[in-house]
């Protein structure tokens, strides 16, 4: 019997295009990772396996700079993710559970629009804003800017999750003598938790690796990891940068993996 094979794998060139895409996406990462273990000070000649550049990151001439930058990056990312996730959770509660209120569509647009605005525009605008209110640039301006641009990233997984939770769960809780607050903490929150954790992790990663906005609003002398790496690269790429990059990459992979497993544990079904 003749059957039409619509399997995409049989399309001409499917394999080639797939391999090309994967190559373009991952080859640089693989090369950076491999060369971070290079014993040579050159970034192109392989001279054997070594952890020399990892040690260099922690003890080398630039180590103080990187340590401060890493501290700034992680503290800012944790605080920005916490604050933006809290705000996004409240926003999602209002948007999904608030019934039909005026300007609901507009509100949704306003929350997600920053995702579409070119980052350079946001960066310039944020800088102008801080200057106009006389806010001295430094650690705090980076934190405030990060909280602001992380909100839409945290909002998306949280609201998607909330839309999957029917009203009847809260109603059932209240019907069974739970107050509004108890219904929220004992029923709605546990059901929302996977969305909130995903939102937090996404906001954390986005904050951790932001460069453009940070570079605009940071004050002189205050660096985060991305700006410190950029500053270092301007004087030529050294293998220690590859070591830092590989560490950041591994960290991101761990975070994304956690996020994946959390969102997979769907407890509404």
């Amino acid at each position, binding site marked *: 019997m003749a059957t039409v094979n619509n399997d995409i794998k049989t399309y001409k060139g499917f394999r080639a295009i797939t391999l090309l895409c994967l190559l373009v996406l991952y080859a640089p990462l693989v090369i950076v990772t491999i060369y971070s273990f290079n014993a040579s000070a050159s970034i192109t000649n392989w001279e054997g396996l070594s952890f020399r550049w990892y040690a260099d990151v922690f003890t080398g001439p630039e180590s103080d700079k990187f340590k401060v930058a890493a501290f700034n990056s992680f503290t800012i990312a944790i605080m920005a993710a916490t604050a933006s996730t809290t705000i996004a959770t409240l926003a999602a509660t209002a948007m999904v559970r608030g019934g039909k209120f005026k300007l609901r569509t507009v509100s949704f647009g306003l929350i997600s629009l920053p995702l579409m605005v070119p980052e350079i525009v946001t960066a310039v605008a944020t800088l102008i804003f801080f200057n106009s209110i006389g806010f001295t640039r430094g650690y705090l301006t980076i934190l405030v800017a990060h909280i602001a641009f992380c909100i839409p990233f945290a909002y998306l997984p949280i609201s998607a999750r909330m839309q999957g939770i029917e009203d009847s769960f809260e109603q059932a*809780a209240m019907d069974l003598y739970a107050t509004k607050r108890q219904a929220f903490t004992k029923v709605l929150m546990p059901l929302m938790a996977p969305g909130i954790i995903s939102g937090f992790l996404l906001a954390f990663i986005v904050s951790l690796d932001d460069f453009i906005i940070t570079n605009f609003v940071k004050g002189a002398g205050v660096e985060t990891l991305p700006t410190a790496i950029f500053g270092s690269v301007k004087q030529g790429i050294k293998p220690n940068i590859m070591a830092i990059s590989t560490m950041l990459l591994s960290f991101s992979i761990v975070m994304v993996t956690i996020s994946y497993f959390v969102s997979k544990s769907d407890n509404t079904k």
Partner: protein
Amino acid sequence: MSERMSNAIDVRNAVKRYGDFTALKRISLTIKDNEFFTLLGPSGCGKTTLLRMIAGFEDVTEGEILLYGDEIEKLPPHQRPVNTVFQNYALFPHMTILENVAFGLEMRGKSKSEARTRAGEMLELVQLSQFAARKPSQLSGGQQQRVALARALAPQPKVLLLDEPLSALDLKLRKAMQLELKHLQRETGITFIFVTHDQEEALTMSDRIAVMSAGEMQQLGSPTEIYEQPRNMFVADFIGETNLLEVSVDQVMNGRAVCHLGGGHALTCNSVEGINVGAKVHMSVRPERLFTTDVPVEGEALKGRVVENIFVGTDISTIVDLAEGPQFIVRTSNSERGNKRIFEPGSEIFVNMELGAGRLLVD
């Protein structure tokens, strides 16, 4: 106990409006203590709205709702001693079956161990003890339904509200659950208010039924009253199968009326309040109270021709084209086939009504 106190629920002039739309048009009804009461009607008739108003999920635009004499219409849901079995069960997916059933008890201030013990007893009552440690998603629809029931009954509510709880189950399970619900109601002595659009379900389980349509109550009565003495066109048409004939009323006397069809054929039937001489109204007659013969058995028999015989398991439905009126359905139980004849399609026959089977309706 005063007369008023023995009423589980008193709904007084309850109105519900959503903007310009009136979902409930001034409903008043009384539900007695320990009663299995059903709100029956098609979707959009306001039955679920009324139930949700009693539960506290919808506020009352106008009117009052009393629970054993206490006004409750302004209390939030958690302060009303009533519990609901939701249409989709709404079991908490992140809790075990036992935790689900214990939830209401814990919220009412029972200690964890006390709540769990009582929840265990409730699970025993619905024969699900062995599933106590499972999550709701690991149970079948019928089992989830029984958990929802146990969870709602555990805090011993004064009234149990059931919002079409059987609609998601298959026919066989639904029939079994109907009986189980009825038994549970008798066993617990709790007043049940059951919402359904399924008239058969309502007739099977209820002590009394309120038939609703378009935000209004059409009739309130026992299943027998609703079925045998429908008050108006809507009730006669909605409950069971019925044959309708347009008639003109010539005479009304002692609850009986003499009428005639368009062609002049005279009929005697039961009258109801509000029917006046000269009125053009409908007469309803149930298919199982008709029988076909080749010669008229009584003077009022209607002439017709058999169109089709349909075998429906326990009965045979015969569709007859009346000479003077629309099509009629005549139902013959298979157990009666010995003494009642089934005529072939095309046969010229007479449709006879049992004495008192015809009933006039107000529109």
